[in-house]
């Protein structure tokens, strides 16, 4: 099922959670809504689910106006960060819930329900736990039960609200890959809300970055990462070094380095953003002179903090190089190096 949002707004008291959101989710897409807390991503998901009614705008399901449909009529599977498993029911009863509350005329026979639950348990690889209670399961298992329960009603759309946020990073990683495989097998339309850029990039076909209730940028993950449309997106998608740009005669400089040219003088303050891996470290005579003030080895990569001398920045620059390079060059604390920028982007400051 495809979902379209047209000019959707929602306020909570004085606070505008989302403002004039237009969004197209094609059938079978796996879309991530990404943003910091308070950006409106959860509200947007809840509007799609029917858990909130928008103040303005329309929600269309397959072109049909679903704005006022109650949640039960939308056939959406909704998965919460905290699983929301029914504590007094076993895993089996949890998954069967959506089938057992159907009207008598629509309810499958008991044997069919049992078969369906068993199939779902197999799908989420939890066959052995059918008679356990949620309290007896691990976090990752609970979230898989929650997914199976949501899928029992054959939803057209799967909505996931920070589904892996409460799990430790290894389980999170496994579940993400598993979810991606599941999606590729079953092809339902899915929207996942997350504040973790890595999760969004890893799992989704399309990433929508939200900020203060508005869509900042949307696109395929690689494109968003490589060509952020604003300083906000650039900062949010990964580590950056932020350097002030100074304008002289239609030219923007960071220290002695020319970073931008423009026919008209920029009237607002601007910054150049450079990712740690876009810094090039060489001999002290090439580029900015800097000294290494911190070294952190993180598996295959090494992060270096560099203090630039005589340049318009006070915080250390963060650089990222491969472990091989680090070992080949044998960098040491306090060593003097030269720093160059391979790539940068200039934005208005805010």
């Amino acid at each position, binding site marked *: 099922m495809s979902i379209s949002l047209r000019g959707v707004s929602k306020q909570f008291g004085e606070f505008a*959670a989302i403002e004039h959101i237009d969004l197209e989710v094609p059938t079978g897409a796996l879309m991530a809504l990404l943003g910091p*807390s*308070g*950006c*409106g*991503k*959860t*509200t947007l998901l809840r509007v799609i*689910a*029917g*858990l909130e009614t928008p103040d303005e705008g329309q929600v269309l399901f397959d072109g049909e106006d679903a704005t006022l449909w*109650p*949640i*039960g009529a*939308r056939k*959406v*599977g*909704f998965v*919460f*960060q*905290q*699983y*929301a*498993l*029914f*504590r*007094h029911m076993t895993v089996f009863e949890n998954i069967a*819930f*959506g089938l057992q*509350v*159907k009207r008598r005329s629509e309810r499958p026979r008991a044997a069919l329900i049992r078969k369906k639950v068993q199939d779902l348990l197999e799908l989420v690889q939890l066959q052995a736990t059918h008679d356990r*209670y*949620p*309290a007896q399961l691990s*976090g990752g298992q*609970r979230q898989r039960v929650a997914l199976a*329960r*949501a899928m*029992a*009603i054959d939803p057209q759309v799967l909505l996931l*609200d*920070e589904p892996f*946020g*409460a799990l430790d990073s290894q389980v999170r990683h496994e579940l993400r890959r598993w979810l991606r495989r599941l999606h590729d097998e079953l092809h339902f339309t899915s929207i996942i809300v997350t*504040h973790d850029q890595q999760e969004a990039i890893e799992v989704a076909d399309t990433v929508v970055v939200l900020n203060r209730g508005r869509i900042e940028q949307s696109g395929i993950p690689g494109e968003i990462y490589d060509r952020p449309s604003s300083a906000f997106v650039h900062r949010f998608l990964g580590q950056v070094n932020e350097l002030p740009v100074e304008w002289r005669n239609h030219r923007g400089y960071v220290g002695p380095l020319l970073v931008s040219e423009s026919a008209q003088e920029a009237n607002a303050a601007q910054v150049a953003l450079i990712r740690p891996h876009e810094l090039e470290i060489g001999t002290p005579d090439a580029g900015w002179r800097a000294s290494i003030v911190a070294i952190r080895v993180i598996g295959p990569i090494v992060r270096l903090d560099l203090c630039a001398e005589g340049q318009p920045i006070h915080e250390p620059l963060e650089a990222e190089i491969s472990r091989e390079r680090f070992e080949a060059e044998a960098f040491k604390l306090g060593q003097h190096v030269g720093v160059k920028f391979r790539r940068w982007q200039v934005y208005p400051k805010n």
Partner: protein
Amino acid sequence: MSRILLIAVALLFLGLFLAMPLLAVFAQAFSKGLAVYAAAISDPMALAAVQLTLWVAAIAVPLNLVFGVAASWAIAKFEFRGKSTLITLIDLPFAVSPVIAGLVFILIFGTHGWFGGYLRAHHMRVVFAVPGIVLATVFVSFPFIARELIPVMQTQGNDDEETALSLGATGWQTFWRVTLPNIRWGLLYGVLLCNARAMGEFGAVSVVSGHIRGLTNTLPLHVEILYNEYNYTAAFAVASLLALLALLTLAGKSVLEWRQPELRRVAGTRQDRTRRGHP
């Protein structure tokens, strides 16, 4: 040393002010033997009082049950104007003296009260009759269930209900299959306390009852009448029934609390609810 002293003080205080009076009730009740005790509590007037007390509780507790669940549901799960006023109002019966509660009903439903003329014209009695006793009891025992449920429902949030709705359950199905099982122990505890108060209330009921023997006398009022007639043994015999109710309530409460650790373990899914990200 200071620990022993503290415990000793606490125990002494408990013994002096709680255990001793309780013992005294039973000692006095049985002081003239089992036969007198049995006669006192099987006296027709005593039986009538027991019956009335049971009736009143049987009406007041379910009323407060329905109201308590509705009010705490509204308070815990919805945002609306006047919510803090509602929370304050629920506590009113705790704050106000029961005598005043009784007088308020006289003022409203008494012969010279607001609805006095209307009631007289339609040959209905509220004050000095059973309806007045029920009203006064509902009033004083009103906060217990809501007070018990509000925090339970607040910590549980809306996720379970929203999940049930998203799975196609109706509002009723959600309530019976999801909400009620989630709050059952808190609810039971609230009902227990509400019932104890409903059966034991003296002040408010005394004002509206009119003390008509065999008709509008509840157990606590009957105890007072017997006592005022210097019929100490009978008074204490009937009082022992109330004391027994208190003991049973405490026992029930302990059983529920003893179940709590298990409950908390099952509620473990909720305990790691530290980083909920609703904007």
